[in-house]
């Protein structure tokens, strides 16, 4: 990318990046994507380690690729590294951000899951799980809704909404493999139907 900054990063910069992502990990309640605005402020506005285009494409690529969307964090580290040097630095960058974003939250999740499982008959634990069920299902629906409505104008983009609704209905009511639906969506988009 032509507008990518050229950086010379010291080990203190890498350490700062690592520490910042350690903090973000603990703040990422409701998924890592909720901290994306803060990452933007830190990486693009404050330090100029990433260009605007690199930031946006990191998220877009991770969402389009198979696998958890959290990989956008690895791509940001990768891009910072490649702005500072070659493939080696890029790999190091991906390692720094990815380790930092996962380490605190995973440790906490591991301990919490262990505790919750050992105390699963406890009234408080059962109450918590039963009470959260309607909320987390609604959050899931909200995620689907937000993905469906991102940057779209209902008047012009109704075919996309229709595709979302039809795929939801098919998956809800049938056992059709999800990859067929994704392939159909890709084909419709490729040929300009959407």
């Amino acid at each position, binding site marked *: 990318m032509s507008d990518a900054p050229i950086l010379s990063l010291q080990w203190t910069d890498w350490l700062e990046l690592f520490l910042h992502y350690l903090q973000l*990990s603990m703040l990422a309640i409701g998924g890592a994507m909720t901290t994306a605005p803060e990452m933007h402020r830190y990486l693009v506005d404050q330090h100029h380690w990433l260009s605007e285009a690199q930031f946006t494409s990191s998220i877009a690529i991770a969402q389009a690729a198979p696998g958890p*969307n959290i990989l956008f964090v690895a791509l940001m580290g990768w891009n910072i590294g490649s702005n500072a040097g070659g493939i080696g630095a890029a790999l190091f960058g991906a390692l720094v951000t990815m380790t930092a974003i*996962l380490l605190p*939250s*995973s440790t906490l*999740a591991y301990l919490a899951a262990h505790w919750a499982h050992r105390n699963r008959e406890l009234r408080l634990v059962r109450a918590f799980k039963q009470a959260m069920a309607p909320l987390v299902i609604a959050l899931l629906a909200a995620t*689907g809704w937000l993905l469906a409505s991102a940057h779209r104008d209902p008047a012009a983009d109704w075919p996309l909404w229709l595709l979302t609704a039809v795929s939801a209905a098919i998956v809800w009511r049938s056992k059709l493999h999800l990859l067929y639906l*994704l392939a159909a969506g890709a084909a419709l988009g*490729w040929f300009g139907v959407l």
Partner: protein
Amino acid sequence: MTIADRPQPRSLTDLFLSFNQLALQGFGGVLAIAQRELVERKRWLSNEEFVEEWSVAQIMPGPNIVNLALMIGARHFGLRGAMAAVAGMLALPLVLVLALALLYAQFAHHPQMAGALRGMGAVAAGLILAAALKLAGALKTNPLGMPACVTLGVACFSGVALLRWPLIYLLLGLGVPTCLVAYRRLAP
């Protein structure tokens, strides 16, 4: 909540490969495929158990789906299981996503590629909505009762999706009172 008569992951390799396979099918997010694979195909969890695990995974900081993999791995094989499941979820997709980043510059402005990504994005949104619809079936056995669950769900959805309120306030505002009510309903 009997898990004795249900299939379970057989080994660390089984965990690694299962989560790897699941992650590689997850275009635009892994949750929809996780419900399909773990509940409907492998039957490691029922819909009810999936919702319970998901509530903990969701409420913890960090990427939800990684938390879920970690918790399921840990349940069966402890710390090593957690690591195997998370590694399976992340290793190969990470390589793929880095390779895609190298290719991306060439295809970013390709109109047909952009169209295909839009199409896949719309389907991915539908898959997540369908997962929510299926998991809503698990609410039938909820001690809060269906009307209360629907009301809470609608309130939570409106707050997040329509009003765009910060999640933390919604979880505290709706979650804490609901926990208290559920606690009373579960009275021994």
